[in-house]
């Protein structure tokens, strides 16, 4: 599985011009944003120093008894939304810039990973033609929501994904960042940040089983599911299991399968230490004929350029990303999902 680095370089150079325009807007908006923010901070500092009880003053002087007070009240209320607007503009253009890179580079990376055993394809969020084809593709896109791993009050902020086949096993990889529906800022309540893999199960299954790392409290509404106790004490210590059918769950979660999940956790720990991430939290759900594996790393996993402002591309990042994609093959092999 070799990625054609020269092809990546040439595509990056060819598309550099398109991004440059966006980049200039980002830089310009950033300047405005910093300028307004600095003025705003200075303005507030002066006002606070001038009127010791400034915040009470701007409320009580709303009738405009003091012209200075009225002007400061209006300025205080107006400058903030302007700064917020610039911040929003920066994030919109940044998103578009990153999407441009992803769209151009991911396909080449996917192509480089494909061979006789693997077929992998990148689906960007704006690929409307692709989604028009069938409802099934829409279902793939919605996999993270259908996994049962995420509470409904959280929304997904990234929508691109990879789909593919490895040794005749269909899979999808979603880079997910779930946060509260109401939130818009950087400090919003993020519930999950990491990849969610959906893989075809090699067994017929009619039940719903949720497996959560023991360290985290289960925030998902478990409905009619009951907590079940399995024979493997070590597995029980590491995970909490909920199911609506004890026999079906045990049919999938055989003793050897539980052993493999524990081994998978060790692989993920090694992987997360490479990325300087926290200890990963492994969540799994087995739903009908699919197994969903969510790895909460608290970091974005899909290729996102670090040095945006220089419009350069670090090939080491591509190597790192390749390793991340190959994790799916390790998961399939480790859990023996390619064997019927």
């Amino acid at each position, binding site marked *: 599985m070799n990625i054609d680095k020269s092809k990546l370089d040439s595509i990056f150079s060819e598309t550099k011009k398109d991004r440059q325009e966006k980049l200039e807007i980002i830089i310009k908006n950033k300047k405005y944003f910093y300028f307004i923010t600095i003025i705003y901070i200075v303005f507030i500092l002066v006002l606070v120093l001038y009127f010791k009880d400034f915040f009470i003053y701007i409320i009580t002087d709303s009738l405009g008894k003091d012209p200075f007070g009225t002007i400061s009240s209006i300025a205080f209320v107006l400058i903030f939304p302007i700064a917020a607007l610039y911040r929003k503009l920066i994030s919109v253009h940044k998103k578009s810039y990153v999407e441009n890179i992803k769209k151009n580079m991911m396909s080449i990376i996917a192509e480089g990973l494909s061979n006789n055993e693997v077929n992998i394809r990148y689906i960007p969020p704006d690929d409307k033609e692709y989604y028009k084809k069938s409802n099934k593709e829409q279902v793939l896109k919605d996999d993270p929501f259908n996994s049962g791993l995420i509470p409904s009050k959280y929304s997904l902020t990234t929508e691109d994904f990879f789909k593919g086949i490895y040794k005749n096993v269909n899979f999808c990889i979603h880079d997910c960042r779930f946060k509260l529906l109401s939130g818009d800022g950087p400090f919003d309540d993020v519930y999950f940040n990491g990849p969610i893999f959906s893989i075809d199960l090699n*067994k*017929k299954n009619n039940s719903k089983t949720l497996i959560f790392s023991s360290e985290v409290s289960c925030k998902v509404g478990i409905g009619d599911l009951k907590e079940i*106790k*399995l*024979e493997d004490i070590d597995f029980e210590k590491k995970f909490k299991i909920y199911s609506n059918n*004890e*026999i*079906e*769950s*045990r*049919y999938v979660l*055989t003793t050897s399968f539980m052993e493999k999940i524990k081994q998978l956790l060790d692989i993920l720990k090694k992987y997360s230490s490479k990325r300087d991430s926290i200890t990963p939290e492994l969540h799994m759900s087995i739903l009908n004929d699919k197994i969903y594996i969510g790895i909460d790393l608290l970091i974005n996993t899909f290729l996102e350029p670090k040095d945006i402002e220089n419009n350069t591309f670090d090939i080491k990042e591509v190597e790192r990303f390749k390793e991340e994609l190959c994790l799916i093959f390790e998961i399939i092999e480790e859990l023996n999902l390619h064997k019927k």
Partner: protein
Amino acid sequence: MEIFIILLVLVAILGIIFYSFYVPLIKLKNKVQESLSGIDVQLKKRSDLIPNILGLASKFMTHERSLIEDITKIRTEVQKMSILNKEEAGKVLDKNSELSTKLNQLFVSLENYPQLKSDSTIIQAQQTYAEVEEHISAARRFYNSAVNELNNSIEIFPSSIVASLLGMKKMELFKILDEKEREVIKVSDYLK
């Protein structure tokens, strides 16, 4: 009067304590019953599969007549019994274990009939059979887990007192009854 009230409070406290141990015990007992009926359902599923397999096998496997007849006979006996009936439970498990061994023998014998072995219907039947076997194994694990929980409650103080008052006894875990099942299958034995 005061003594009467104190006695009444004591009885009420004891009653609440008894009830708080009684409810989980009954829940566990019912869970064991539920798991047992789970095994019953899976065994019936397997039993229902057998005529289909035998129907196909009897057309080609002329040398295995006695084996096919044995399976038919055991299946008929198994169908008349239920694992949920306490007196029959042991016998049902014995018979099912015997049935399982015979069916495995039949599948190994399939190797001698390439035409049948490659038949899509028999391949499908074999796959379904393997699935049902795995379900039976899962149902047994569920049963063992439920029995283990119940036995712990029956043996560990203080719920053991309530259990003994209710006359509840430790239940047997599901073991591999047939020593043949425990043995590793020697392929060479079948290739003689």
